[in-house]
């Protein structure tokens, strides 16, 4: 069975809590806070003001520039504020606050359950529709999908790889979508493949989801899709873009600034494909998504179809609430998610799950001295030496850190996960990476200025 070539770790997947829980529709929130920055790139520009009435699916903020995405209202009601509101980390961020009144949808959105396969649109029209719907990568990276599908001059897309790996422990939202909405998801894949004009389309799914693999294979056989399902050996971080491309095609994306397209591959998340289906075939913008609420101590872990902007506290409540004491509520999975201090912050496009840790597991392990056990070197999927990078970072030896290829780091956390001394390896590597990237950008700017 295929997997990526270097490093990786095997955290226990903890999918058992929520993987068999069918998707439920979360009760509509009374108030939503919709951030203008839910994607990589420039925040969108608000198109509504306090007092405006909006419908579900109405454009409320427009993409600003090339790397940006549209934002639509997830509820119908009245805009009560366009103002700075604290996000999950407690940092104030521009958000549109809407008080919900009923559930009135934009008339052009097709809300029927009928599955529409036929798509006669040209590639450019498909991409335009995806852009219009404000779709971004829903696996967590939130890269605007229309930018990803616009292949740069001189590059050719050979492979479309759909990321159904969901290698983050605990999370099951992609899993449930592949299981319950497989056909629509595959039509979305077919549409993306058409937009790209690729020869090979592969859905990569880790082998801990045999039901999803079987379901997709069955639909492909019955309905005649030209799509291959590739079961992958379970190993974190297989869902990393570069790791997944290497696992499926054997091709390794060269170090930055090279992109996946340079080896002829485009990777799209499974839930994003479903959103593409809804956008292109049903005119439905990205206003809701499946969010897993999970954790070892949650009384009722679930997979909830949630409107964007819903307070995360509402999901936590649906999951059974928090127990007394120390808690860590993570937006995303345990390996790359972000811990929150403000759980009244909203669900956004990149939020695939909420993972809750309590008590001792909410805290980091005790730190010892490095014993040079080399486990971090063995675990690093990029072939870096975290033990060395942490020292270079501590000593601020940025030139050396650049030589040791710190910009290659994908921040997957394998090194820190595996370190028996409990060292905060990734904290230091991240610091050094940001500093080095800043130096590289400054150097490039200086070069450009000389010319």
């Amino acid at each position, binding site marked *: 069975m295929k997997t990526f070539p270097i490093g990786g770790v095997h955290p226990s997947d903890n999918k058992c809590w929520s993987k068999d829980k069918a998707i439920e529709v979360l009760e509509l929130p009374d108030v939503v806070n919709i951030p203008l920055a839910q994607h990589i790139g420039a925040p969108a520009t608000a198109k509504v003001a306090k007092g405006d009435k909006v419908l579900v699916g109405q454009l409320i903020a427009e993409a600003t520039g090339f790397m940006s995405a549209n934002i639509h209202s997830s509820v119908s009601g009245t805009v009560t504020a366009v103002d700075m509101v604290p996000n999950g980390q407690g940092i104030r961020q521009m958000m549109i606050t809407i008080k919900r009144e009923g559930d009135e949808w934009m008339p052009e959105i097709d809300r029927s359950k009928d599955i529409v396969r036929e798509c006669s649109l040209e590639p450019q029209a498909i991409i335009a529709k995806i852009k219009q719907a404000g779709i971004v990568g829903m696996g967590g990276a939130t890269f605007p999908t229309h930018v990803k599908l616009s292949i740069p001059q001189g590059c050719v897309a050979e492979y479309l790889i759909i990321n159904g790996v969901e290698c983050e422990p605990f999370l099951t939202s992609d899993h449930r979508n592949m299981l319950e909405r497989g056909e629509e998801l595959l039509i979305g894949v077919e549409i993306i493949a058409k937009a790209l004009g690729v020869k090979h389309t592969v859905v990569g799914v880790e082998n801990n989801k045999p039901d999803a693999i079987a379901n997709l294979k069955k639909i492909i056989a019955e309905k005649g899709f030209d799509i291959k399902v590739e079961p992958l050996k379970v190993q974190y971080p297989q869902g990393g873009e570069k790791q997944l491309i290497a696992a499926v095609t054997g091709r390794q994306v060269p170090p930055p600034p090279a992109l996946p397209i340079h080896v002829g591959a485009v990777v799209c998340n499974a839930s994003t494909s479903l959103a593409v289906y809804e956008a292109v075939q049903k005119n439905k913008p990205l206003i809701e998504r499946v969010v897993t609420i999970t954790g070892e101590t949650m009384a009722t872990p679930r997979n909830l179809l949630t409107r964007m902007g819903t307070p995360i506290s509402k999901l936590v409540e649906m999951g059974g609430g928090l127990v007394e004491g120390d808690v860590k509520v993570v937006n995303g999975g345990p390996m790359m998610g972000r811990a929150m201090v403000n759980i009244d912050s909203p669900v956004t496009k990149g939020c695939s799950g909420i993972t809750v840790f309590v008590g001792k597991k909410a805290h980091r*392990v005790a730190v010892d*001295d490095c014993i040079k056990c080399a486990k971090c070197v063995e675990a690093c999927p*990029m072939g870096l030496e975290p033990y060395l990078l942490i020292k270079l970072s501590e000593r601020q030896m940025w030139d050396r850190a650049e030589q040791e290829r710190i910009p290659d780091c994908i921040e997957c956390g394998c090194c820190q*996960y595996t370190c028996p001394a409990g060292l905060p390896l990734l904290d230091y590597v991240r610091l050094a990476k940001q500093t080095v990237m800043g130096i590289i950008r400054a150097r490039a700017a200086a070069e450009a200025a000389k010319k």
Partner: protein
Amino acid sequence: MANKFIAAPAPHMHNPHSTQSLMRDVIIALLPALAVSAWVYGLDVLKITAIAITSCVVVEFLIQKLFIGGRQTVSNLSAIVTGLLLAFNLPTTIPWWIIVVGAVIAIGVGKMTYGGLGKNPFNPALVGRVFLLIAYPVQMTTFSQPTVAGYVDAMSGATPLASVKSLAGDASFAEAIGGVDFTNMLYGMMPGSMGEIAALALIVGGLYMLWRKVITWHIPVSILCTMALFAFAVVFFGGERGAVLYEFPAFHILAGGALLGAIFMATDYVTSPMTHKGMIIYGIGIGAITMIIRLWGAYPEGMSFAILIMNGVTPLINKYVKPRRFGKTSAK
């Protein structure tokens, strides 16, 4: 809601290994060899082991308390591992005070001088052992006979390596190892240091550590393969033919500290390289140096020296041998 929200950057999960659990696994892996040793040599083995472990732990505790300060590191169990390994390198006839001197050198000079676990350039147990070997050569090489019933004295008190070495000057390789009983060597029925005699028990310990992912195969396999190939080449180009071509390499792997060194001493995290490629270079170095000392040097045994020499080379290996980077060899 009485909740304190903990906010630290990802990752939010940690694998169950800790320094302490790794050391505990090494101790468990050493127990079979200790048991065989106690069976072969009697209860003196346990006494010596207890003295060695106690001295190492006490020395580390005192140095940490009196000189270094800060958090006590004894609980990471590494002093116990050093004590066990030091004991494994001693003969059963050793006087108790030499053990204490060994522990002071191993922990005091070999480890704590540099700042404790993780910072020492040389394997502490070997620093202690080699010091004792040079300072007290007689006491360190007076080996008693196995006391277990059924042992036939084939090699009269000298270790197999020493007896072969004393013969090798004028006898052929075949004659030199003619008196060797391989079955006895496998089960530990030979004179030698306490922990090095039980080949099978050491291999079992090594497999346990591989299974628990405490070590990888790279260091032990590269050392043992190098030694075997080296021995084979020497015999082959020495003009010997027949069974000795296989017996001579097998003898060198089973005799002396080869297995103990390859599986337990050379794999010491702190003093071995960080990359798989580096580990293999390090292993080849140890294997080759061991054989050069064994065959042509003044000592019958070369494992300890070889490991210490390669410990010294480790920083250089780490500087120049880099792991295979992702994306360096893009297909197409």
